[in-house]
């Protein structure tokens, strides 16, 4: 981002902005690798807890070094390229998926004025960059010379293009309320209340679309293990496979920080600006952790959607709801109606969305008698 914001973001190392940017990005990348290693460990522990298992507990105390052991194993593993693969496409795809995440990390604020760079169009930038990592996925799907990979690539493309629309619209809703695209400024605006309270519907839509962009259950269709055995990265091994894994967890982390900045007040709420940067970092950490655990929780309990259900959920439910949110925001902001109205309308919308899903959870009518029968029989037997 050469010509991006010329204003310095915090203190500049040695007064030389290029060197400063490089040092900062290196630090962020190093932190990211550690975060990713512990995210994999944490995910395995959380999933194990939910599934009544123990999870990794052998390498190091409580299995804390398991992630590093896995990383070493992946690094020294043989790098296999199928003969049918398109060589350069196949080999560059993992790196192309990773670069956008790196770009996102360069624009995220971790605390007040703490980050690589403050991009004035941060909100748009993050979206644009996250939209790019589909290219690497498509390249992996096309270049692997494998039908599962091809199917995974097709599914990923269809899914990510579709869900990008409600994702962007839900973020635009927040931008309307905030009146700026600068992530740092958005966080500062949430000093007294997070935007979650003003835009619950946008939050629900954002969270759902984010799960889809991350290929997390119930939207893990492109990587569906039981259908297309891993999808686009089925042919990868060793370091290239670990690049995909790194991308997955790094983008989970990036999304969690981005989401907590945009909706939960990031490092600012509560008391962020009063209690100093230590508290701000802690707030970012806690919020992104809560976000990540929510994602993992959803992953372990929810089955996978089918591709047509996925599409119709996006185009028939999420997109109209996000447009409704956009429209309501427009009216309320143009006529300067009180902000409570935002909360109210958006809350009603969110309740309608969640209620719609809950309503459909009602049991299948054709087996109602069956459920009753076996419950009774079971009661008798007990």
């Amino acid at each position: 981002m050469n010509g991006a914001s010329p204003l310095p973001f915090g203190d500049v190392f040695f007064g030389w902005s290029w060197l400063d940017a490089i040092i900062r990005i290196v630090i962020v990348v190093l932190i990211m690798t550690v975060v990713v290693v512990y995210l994999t460990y944490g995910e395995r522990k959380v999933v194990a807890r939910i599934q009544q298992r123990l999870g990794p507990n052998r390498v190091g105390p409580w299995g804390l070094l398991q992630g590093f052991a896995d990383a070493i194993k992946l690094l020294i593993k043989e790098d296999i390229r199928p003969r049918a693969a398109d060589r350069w496409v196949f080999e560059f795809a993992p790196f192309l998926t990773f670069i956008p995440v790196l770009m996102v990390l360069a624009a995220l604020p971790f605390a007040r004025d703490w980050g690589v760079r403050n991009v004035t169009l941060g909100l748009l930038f993050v979206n644009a960059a996250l939209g790019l990592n589909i290219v690497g996925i498509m390249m992996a799907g096309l270049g692997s010379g494998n039908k599962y990979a091809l199917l995974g690539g097709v599914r990923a493309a269809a899914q990510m293009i579709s869900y990008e629309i409600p994702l962007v619209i839900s973020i635009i809703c927040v931008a309307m309320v905030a009146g700026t695209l600068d992530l740092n400024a958005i966080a500062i605006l949430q000093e007294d209340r997070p935007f979650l309270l003003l835009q619950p519907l946008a939050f629900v839509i954002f969270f759902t679309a984010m799960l889809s962009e991350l290929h997390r259950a119930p939207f893990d269709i492109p990587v569906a293990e039981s259908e297309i055995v891993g999808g686009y990265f089925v042919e990868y091994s060793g370091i290239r496979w670990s690049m995909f894994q790194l991308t997955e967890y790094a983008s989970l982390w990036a999304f969690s920080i981005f989401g907590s900045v945009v909706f939960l007040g990031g490092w600012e709420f509560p008391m962020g600006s009063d209690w100093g940067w230590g508290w701000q970092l802690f707030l970012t950490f806690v919020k992104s952790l809560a976000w990540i655990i929510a994602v993992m929780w959803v992953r372990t309990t929810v089955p996978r959607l089918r591709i047509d259900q996925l599409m119709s959920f996006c185009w028939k439910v999420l997109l109209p709801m996000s447009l409704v949110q956009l429209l309501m925001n427009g009216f309320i902001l143009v006529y300067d109606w009180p902000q409570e109205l935002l909360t109210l309308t958006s809350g009603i919308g969110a309740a309608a969305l969640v209620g719609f899903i809950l309503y459909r959870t009602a049991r299948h009518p054709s087996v109602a008698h069956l459920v009753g029968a076996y419950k009774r029989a079971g009661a008798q037997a007990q």
Partner: protein
Amino acid sequence: MATEILWWIFAAAIVGTALGVVFSGSVIHSAIFLILSLAGVGAMYLFLMVEFLALVQFLIYGGAVTVLILLALMLTRMGAGEKVNGSQAPAGFMVAVALAAILVSVAVRTAWPGDTGDMPHNIAIEAVSEKLFLDFGAPFVIASALLLVALIGAIVLARQEDGE
């Protein structure tokens, strides 16, 4: 000076990848060269200090258009083995070279008014949006209608019928 060197690097990259688009033998390689080329154009917008447009370029071309093209490639299963160039390729080559020569010479020889050596300054997004929504309101609405029509048209065309 650094900016100029960077500019030349990017310009060379754009031209090189664009040549890759039209000369590569594999359709998939062409599509990937296209992505790189369009990303280079986005970088050009940054040189011209239109950050907003650069991001839109990344978002629309990188995230959507090229992905659509790749998706079409996947769905139509066009891979190696298909003859990609038509019989008019040599003639087309000559015409294109001539066109390039004429356009470049026109661009270079014309005396442009004003100081063309100046580095443009940044355009604020607020200014763009004001212009777009106030002065260009009608074209904006028409463009939206165009998008909607294209969306519906694409659905109607690509829809799978019964019995297929």
